[in-house]
Structure formats: structure tokens, C-alpha cells
């Protein structure tokens, strides 16, 4: 497949089946997707529509049943397990709804871990984790265990951890699904600032408010894309209409 550098993710005819015979479930059916470098894409749809399956395939957590998928110039559907693990570690950051932090490690240690696994020296990993925790506004919580942190703080640690190896793309599966609205708001602002710095994002969510921070919103149903909304450009100027002065005069 010929990848132009501007396209970070390219999927063609992507399919994922679970089970077999009469129990066969087609979770994803012939999906085509391009994600440009620096783009933020949101995927919405009812539960069971295949959006999480899609994200798991993009993140190399699962293998497609058919179709082609390249991420950061590598054919995910053809990689060996070993090469896929390296791709996941170096190029892909993953953020989950339930945070998935290591409970027995401090915030700092959680963020250091991926860099250590990638072969950084302890000093490099520590410096990187300190900088990342600062970026997500948790420098003063570095020594806390996850149990001592609020949900919103845990998710911000998880985002810092996802960025530990400076990935090409951040994949987020319902990143605010377990958070109250104030914490969701903080995570939203953080994702927005990462996007503004040029990070490529794919966010799966059922919350339109999260979804509309993206550049493009894809709606899924029954394993397929059913609608696409480009959210950038041509949308300014609605706010004034919420204070209707005409009736005032």
C-alpha cells in the first residue's frame, strides 16, 4: 500500500467477525477510513455498533478478519506479533473508559512504565513522566497511588501514560464515560489542547459534546459507517443568535 505521509491511518474493506457458523457476528463490515496526520476524528453510534471494535483494530489490540489496515506507515494486518507490539508501544497511545492504571504504582510510576518498557533509562523515563504529569496539571500528585486520585485525575494520568513514548496517534475509548461532568470537562480541555498541539486523535464516544471537539464525526450503525459530518469551517457566528435582540427593540 502506498502511504502518503499526510495519511496516518488507512483502512480499506476492514472487517471483523466474532464466532463462527450460525454464531457468527460481523462486528465490522467493509469499513474504509483515512485519518490525516493532526486530524481529530470522533466515532459515535449506539452500543454494539462496532465503534470499539474499530478502535481496537486501529490500536493493534485485535486483528482484522479481512481488509487492509496501515497505521503510521505499517501494515497492521500483516505484522508479526512482535512487530505489532512494537508499533503499539512506540506509535499508539490508548486511553480507556476505566483508566486501567496499575493500582500498586504511583501516578509517576504508571507514566514511567511504558518508557521503561521501550528501553529508556530510568532517568530518561523519570524526566519524561515528570514533564508529562506537569502537562496534564498533576505535578503535585506524582507520588499518589491511583486510589488516592479522583476519576478525572486518574484519566489525566492515563493520558500522560498514553503519551509516554510520544506516539503518532492517541486512541480514546469513551474517555469521559466514567467521569462526572466537571471531570469530563477537564479531560475534554486536555484532549483539545493535545489536538491543538498537532496530535492525531481518534475518539469513540456516545457524548456529542466530546465528539464535536473533533474535526470530523463519523456515525456508525451495525458495523458500518452511516454518516459523516465535517465540523470545521463555516460554523462560526451562531452564538449571537442565542441572544435575540430583535424582540428587544
Amino acid at each position: 500500500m502506498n502511504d502518503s505521509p499526510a495519511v496516518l491511518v488507512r483502512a480499506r474493506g476492514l472487517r471483523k467477525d466474532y464466532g463462527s457458523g450460525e454464531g457468527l457476528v460481523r462486528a465490522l463490515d467493509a469499513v474504509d477510513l483515512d485519518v490525516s496526520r493532526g486530524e481529530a476524528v470522533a466515532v459515535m453510534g449506539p452500543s454494539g455498533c462496532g465503534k470499539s471494535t474499530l478502535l481496537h483494530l486501529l490500536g493493534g489490540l485485535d486483528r482484522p478478519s479481512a481488509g487492509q489496515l496501515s497505521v503510521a506507515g505499517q501494515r497492521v494486518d500483516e505484522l508479526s506479533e512482535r512487530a505489532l507490539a512494537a508499533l503499539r508501544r512506540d506509535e499508539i497511545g490508548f486511553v480507556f473508559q476505566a483508566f486501567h492504571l496499575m493500582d500498586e504504582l504511583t501516578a509517576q510510576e504508571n507514566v514511567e512504565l511504558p518508557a521503561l518498557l521501550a528501553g529508556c533509562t530510568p532517568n530518561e523515563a523519570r524526566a519524561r513522566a515528570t514533564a508529562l504529569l506537569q502537562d496534564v496539571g498533576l505535578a503535585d500528585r506524582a507520588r499518589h497511588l491511583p486510589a488516592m486520585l479522583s476519576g478525572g485525575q486518574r484519566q489525566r494520568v492515563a493520558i500522560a501514560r498514553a503519551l509516554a513514548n510520544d506516539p503518532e496517534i492517541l486512541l480514546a475509548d469513551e474517555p469521559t464515560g466514567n467521569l462526572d461532568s466537571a471531570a469530563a470537562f477537564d479531560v475534554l480541555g486536555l484532549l483539545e489542547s493535545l489536538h491543538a498541539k498537532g496530535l492525531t486523535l481518534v475518539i469513540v464516544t456516545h457524548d456529542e459534546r466530546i465528539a464535536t471537539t473533533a474535526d470530523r464525526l463519523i456515525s456508525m450503525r451495525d458495523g458500518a459507517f452511516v454518516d459523516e459530518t465535517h465540523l470545521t469551517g463555516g460554523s462560526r457566528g451562531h452564538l449571537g443568535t442565542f441572544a435575540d435582540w430583535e424582540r428587544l427593540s
Partner: protein
Amino acid sequence: MQQEVVLAMLAKEPSHGYELRARLARALGPVAEGISEAQMYVTLTRLERGGFVERLDAPAQRSDRKVYCLTPTGQERVAEWMSDVSWPRPDLAEFHMKLIAAAQGGLADPISLIDAQRRDLLRRLREVGRAVLEEEKDSDAALLLEGIVLRLQADLRWLHACEIAWTKRGTSK
């Protein structure tokens, strides 16, 4: 928004149009884009003609420095407005009838009308959502924008219900 808003702001202290517009801008944030200073002067002039406000300043003042205060009639109107529970209604009936007329008259596919409307609402939601992030937390304007976000989300939920209902109708024919 009713003209009583301007009257109620004058209850704090006598003021001129420029200052009222500035207070409105602080309270509304980017939503104040819809309200020009000129419109504020026009409104004050009308309220003066209606006997709700009167001039406090010397007549020699520049027109943008005219200071207004509430008259007793104006104060009464403000008190009525404070206890009034009327609420702005989004006109859902119009879009509802658009879908029905489209289907009955064969004018358009209701589902594609819903899709187009949803895309537009999503773009509005994006604009407001970004505006909230730009506002200072806990400011007056952020609270207003939060309300607009919630309303748009409610409208999107209704569109979703429309989509399900019209999809069923389309396939049951």
C-alpha cells in the same frame, strides 16, 4: 430576550448605553455578538418614549453619554418581569411539520432532512463547546454557554428519536 432585561440592569444604578452594553457583554460572553451598541441606544430611546426610563444627565452631554434611570413605571415593569415565568420555546413544531409535509407531499426524504439538521446542530454544538473552553471557568458567560450546550444536546436527542421513528415508517410501507 425582552427589553425588560435593559430595565432590570438599570435597577442597580443609573447608567448610559455604553456601560449597559459592556455589562451585557460581560454577562453574555460571545453570545453578546448578537447585540450591537447601536441597538442598545435604539432600545433606550424607545424605553424613554414609553415612559419606562428618563434622562438624568445635563442635556449638553454627548449622545453616547446620556445617563438613564428607571421611572416608577419602569420599576413596576421590572417587578412584574421578575415574577413572570414565561420561558423561551424552541420551535420544534416547525421542524416536525417539515418532516410530515416532506413525507406526505413527496417533497424530500425525511431521513435526509434529519441528517442535514443534525449536521447543522453538531456544528453549532462544536462552536458553543469551544466557546465554553475559552471562557474563564465559573464565569457568568460560561454558565450561559453551558445552558446552550445542554439545549443543543436535548435537540440532538429529539432528532435521534425522529430518525428512529421515520426509519420505521419508511420500512413499514
